[in-house]
């Protein structure tokens, strides 16, 4: 029997993988993909509880999360393009212009 706990465990696993990707990788594109992974981990929880509580609001919020993720991806990829145009690299260690 699959319980919501299973979905929470899967969701937290994906969340931790995403956080590990943000922490460990130096490639800014991969870091962005890890952020998408984190947002999706949240979506699993929303949809699982929507199904368990028989309430469609969770799915509505999942749709909002997807919309926000789309906006974030567009702006973020624009920033990556502008950054690459200036520095010719996607390594975030080079991204230190605003560091005191």
């Amino acid at each position: 029997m699959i319980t919501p706990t299973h979905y929470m465990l899967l969701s937290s696993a994906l969340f931790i993988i995403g956080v590990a990707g943000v922490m460990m990788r130096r490639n800014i594109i991969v870091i962005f993909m890890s952020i998408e992974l984190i947002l999706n981990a949240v979506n699993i929880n929303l949809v699982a509880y929507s199904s368990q509580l028989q309430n469609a609001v969770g799915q509505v919020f999942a749709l909002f999360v997807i919309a926000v993720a789309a906006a974030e991806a567009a702006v973020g990829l624009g920033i990556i393009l502008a950054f690459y145009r200036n520095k010719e690299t996607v390594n975030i260690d080079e991204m230190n212009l605003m560091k005191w």
Partner: protein
Amino acid sequence: MTSFYLFGAVAVGASLLVIAQRNPVYSVLLLIASFGALSGLYVLLDAPFVAVIQIIVYAGAIMVLFLFVVMLLNAPHEDTEQDLERMASRRPAAAGGVRIFGGALAAGLLVELWWALTKNGGESGVFPGGAVSSVRTIGRSLFTDYAFAFEVTSVLILVAMVGAVVLARREVVTGLGRGRPPGPRTLK
């Protein structure tokens, strides 16, 4: 029940490989595979609408945007010498692998889309109970209780669109003896 473990294993495994891969093109394709598995989980959860949106918007639109940027930057490796050497020797094989993997992925997502669209909700959901998650219910909730949030989301997407255009366009340096008074450099 088996499907849950299957999709969950694919999602977790593909996600692990996303952050373990050196080549961002493979990372993008694996992330699409992971999103496809999540979409399958949504179908199992009796949420076919979210599953279809996940495939169309996430795997279809957002990840294609990622792929565009990865291809545009043409930076298929981290900036280390070992990677430069390894990637130089491995390039042709990698390209063929990407093609095969991408084709299989597209076929899989199509099958999954069809499955999500044709599967009858209700008794086959993981948790017992009727189908609350029909498009009708979601749409009613979206356009009545959450109408304000919906409108704000549209403004957010407009702002993001304008921001992306402003950020990604090539910066034109004006002024400096071209007939215009020198002023602060602007994004023009």
